[in-house]
């Protein structure tokens, strides 16, 4: 049996399990077991992947299995992975795993919470293993819709407004995307023959340039909305700020990566010529995302808003790097996706834990937390350092590679964009250090903070998982970059020829 199918079956079984358990205390254990199994499967998958490669299997996609679904439309259930999707799957399972433990103390409608969360995660897994545009789109929408309930029911602040805004903007994005996908589908057999949704088949076909130019913006913006592309990013700060902790983690950590992944794998890969001729527009937009997001983070006083704007900036950087379309920069983009996924998840987890103790997220109202909750504070500093790109942590590797790659373009336009984007590193340092200074150091502003408890076991587990992953990528990034090199090489070749 194809090991990829486990990635879909396990969430399904977990949901059934949760639905059947009556005792609410056991619900979280069932979910924890399910998501641990999912994490385990992801690592097994990585191992099997290496095994296949070392035994000389050089196919682009491994573990491919195909079944016809709708014959008349040529829709297939086609699953398969390459190095990039494997690394995304790993990211997803790590973030889901720690998100599960962060939500350990959710009391209200606990069953429903975990079920929605797992549907969300299942949609993401399905998206990353799909090789058929139809199923990809199906899983994409399936991942978006539980957000509405998750934010609306378990969120905080103006949760109804944020949930609606997020859902509608993302669904509006998928409206664009749908048109783009249908356009690709109906041009997938220009010389006659059978139309197909199959990603790898379409890549072999040359879609007429006029069609490419028409459909590229639809597809790219469609996915870009999810990747917080300026000016379609406005759902992100509100959505993230109102969402419950685990949802912010999954959303910023994983779901936003769907956007970058889709932009690259679908929009750019299938419509390469249009990507070349229209890249400049989107480079301008992403540069704005990067700088604007970073500046936005400086002015915010709410911890979650700070992190949400910083996500806009970092995810903008992902799209920016992808649009540079050379090997170094795109490697950096993938690394940045993973690195940002991990550290933003860590940030949101910590913010959730701090909020659970202080009941405020306003940085002005807090201070000196290092003295009372040292574990959480130290982890927060680590996350901050990773975010501003300290060598030894994952952020540095990713951003360094991106800027080296984008500097390889020698024309003025790319240079200017690169330099502007680079400035975000400095701005990032400003807002991270400002928060660390006010929040963690300095005098304790409120006496009741003296009684705060430091992290409990499940919080530690969740935090440590993410910190260790960040450190591993920061210290030995080469296994990861070699994992993604082959598919990237192939895709970049396809893009440039």
């Amino acid at each position, binding site marked *: 049996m194809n090991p990829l199918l486990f990635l879909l079956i396990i969430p399904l079984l977990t949901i059934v399990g949760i639905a059947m358990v009556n005792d609410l205390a056991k619900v979280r254990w069932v979910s924890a077991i399910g998501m641990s199994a999912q994490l385990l499967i992801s690592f097994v998958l990585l191992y099997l992947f290496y095994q296949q490669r070392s035994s000389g299997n050089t196919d682009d996609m491994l573990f491919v299995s195909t079944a016809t*679904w*709708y*014959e*008349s*439309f040529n829709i297939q259930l086609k699953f398969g992975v390459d190095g990039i999707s494997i690394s995304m799957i790993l990211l997803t399972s790590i973030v889901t795993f720690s998100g599960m433990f962060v939500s350990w103390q959710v009391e209200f409608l606990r069953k429903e919470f975990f079920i929605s969360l797992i549907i969300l995660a299942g949609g993401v897994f399905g998206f990353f293993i799909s090789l058929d545009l*139809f199923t990809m789109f*199906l*899983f994409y*929408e*399936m991942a978006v*819709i539980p957000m*509405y*309930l998750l934010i*609306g*029911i378990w969120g905080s602040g103006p*949760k*109804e407004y944020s949930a*609606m805004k997020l*859902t*509608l903007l993302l*669904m*509006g994005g*998928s*409206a*664009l995307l*749908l*048109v783009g996908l*249908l*356009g690709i*589908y*109906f041009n997938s057999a220009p010389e006659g023959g059978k139309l197909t949704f199959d990603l790898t088949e379409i890549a072999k076909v040359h879609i007429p340039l006029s069609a490419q130019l*028409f459909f590229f913006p*639809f597809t790219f913006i469609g996915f870009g909305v999810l990747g917080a592309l300026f000016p379609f990013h406005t759902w992100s700060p509100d959505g993230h700020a109102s969402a419950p902790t685990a949802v912010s983690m999954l959303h910023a950590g994983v779901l936003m990566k769907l956007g970058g992944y889709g932009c690259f794998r679908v929009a750019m890969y299938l419509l390469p010529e249009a990507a070349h001729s229209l890249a400049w527009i989107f480079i301008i937009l992403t540069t704005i995302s990067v700088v604007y997001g970073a500046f936005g983070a400086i002015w915010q006083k709410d911890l979650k808003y700070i992190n949400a704007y910083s996500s806009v900036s970092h995810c903008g950087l992902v799209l920016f790097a992808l649009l540079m379309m050379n090997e170094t920069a795109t490697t950096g983009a993938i690394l940045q996706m993973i690195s940002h996924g991990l550290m933003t998840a860590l940030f949101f987890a910590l913010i959730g834990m701090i909020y659970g103790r202080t009941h405020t997220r306003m940085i002005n109202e807090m201070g000196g937390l290092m003295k009372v909750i040292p574990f959480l504070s130290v982890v927060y500093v680590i996350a901050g350092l990773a975010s501003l790109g300290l060598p030894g942590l994952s952020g540095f590797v990713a951003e360094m590679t991106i800027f080296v790659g984008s500097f390889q373009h020698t024309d003025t336009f790319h240079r200017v964009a690169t330099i502007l984007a680079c400035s975000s590193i400095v701005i990032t340092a400003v807002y991270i250090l400002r928060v660390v200074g006010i929040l963690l150091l300095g005098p304790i502003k409120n006496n009741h903070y003296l009684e705060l408890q430091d992290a409990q076991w499940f919080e530690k587990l969740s935090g440590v998982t993410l910190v260790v992953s960040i450190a591993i990528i920061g210290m030995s990034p080469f296994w990861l970059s070699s994992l993604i090199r082959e598919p990237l090489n192939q895709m970049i070749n396809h893009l440039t020829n």
Partner: protein
Amino acid sequence: MRLEVLLTLLVLWELVADLSVKENKQLVVNLTILFFGIITLSGFIPSANATLFGSMYISDELRFLLKNILNLSTLIILMQSTGWLKKPENRSKTGAFYLLIFSTLIGMDFMISAGDFLMLYLGLELATLPLTILAAFDKKVRRSAEAGIKLMMSSAVSSAVMLFGLSLIYGVYGTLHFSEIALLRDTSTLSVLALVFFMAGLGFKLSLVPFHLWTADVYEGSPMPITSYFSVVSKGAALFTLMLVLFRVFADQPRVWILTAYSLSITTMVVGNLFALRQQNLKRFMAFSSITQAGFMMLGFVNSEVLGMSTIIYFMLIYSLSNLAVFGVLSIVCNATNKERMDDFNGFYTTNPRLSLVLLLALFSLAGIPPVAGFFGKFFLFTAAAAQGMYILVFIAVLNATVSLYYYLLVVKAMFINKNESPIPTLSVSGYEKIALSICVLGIVMIGFLSTVYNYVLHVSG
């Protein structure tokens, strides 16, 4: 012909039963559902293609499929109406209710099976007149009487418009026979006019904008089972008839009706959506939602090939099940509490989790959210339109689908998110209602995954 004959027998039996059974109306209800269930099943027995009355009546696999969809929907409505019929003020009207429902159904069957515009018109009238009585069924409620009159007026107007179209068709082609018209080709202005008048006539039934003005008032005024009958069966019959005439009779000159369908589709979706946004009464809400959905159905008409036809039927099937699930829950609530406003549903999940989940699934299906069937229905409709290169139309449609998601989510929000001091109490669901809802939910969940359903529809419409 067997469905029509059996239905006529059932109508006669209802007359007798209504006269002879005075006290035990529940027996009539049970037997009616049993008999109608058997009739529905008998529609699935395969039979050879045939024509009757000099091919004024056509029977083939496609038409059987269409009638089966209508029968299935009617069966579900009959089961859902049991709670409503139990009310003391409705008990005495049990026989009349069934009589009228089955009469309209016979009319609709004739519409679908028509091989001649005369037969079609006959069926249409037979389907319409009892509907006006049904709309005014709560005769002591003013709104219901008003609904009846409004429906009567607009039906009369639409019949007139359609008859004018038919007379023009006769003037252009010299015949009203489908098979003869299909062989003649005429592109004169008069034939365009004729076709447009004909489409306008059926547009009233389908509640396409700008012929929709009766919809909201009639839906709101009619009793719940009848509203649900309007939105699913009556609409379905009109849609199928329009589809058969356009795809089978005027297949050779699709340009005219494609343009008409194009513009009708856009206006219907946009206007339906704009009005649905602010509705508080759930019946009115569902009225505008069903107008929007009719706009989506018109998308399929821009593709004059098999793909267009199959996606229309497939969408209608899914729409029927989803809409019936919504109305099923609404009627359970309405029967017990008489509540039909959106804010009455605040906190519904806390007291009635299962019913809320059913409503959630059904609304997601209407909005076209995966993995429920509505997603597949919409996606295929969009594919059919995109196959003709009408990407702008598809884009407008998908944007409208997003807007419609907004107001469907408002109901979800009411049920799951909004707090309520005194939510609707936990309701007991009778056996019939359970069966009806289970059929709907099963269909909503499974139809998308089972590609055989679509393959069958495609095979039949080919």
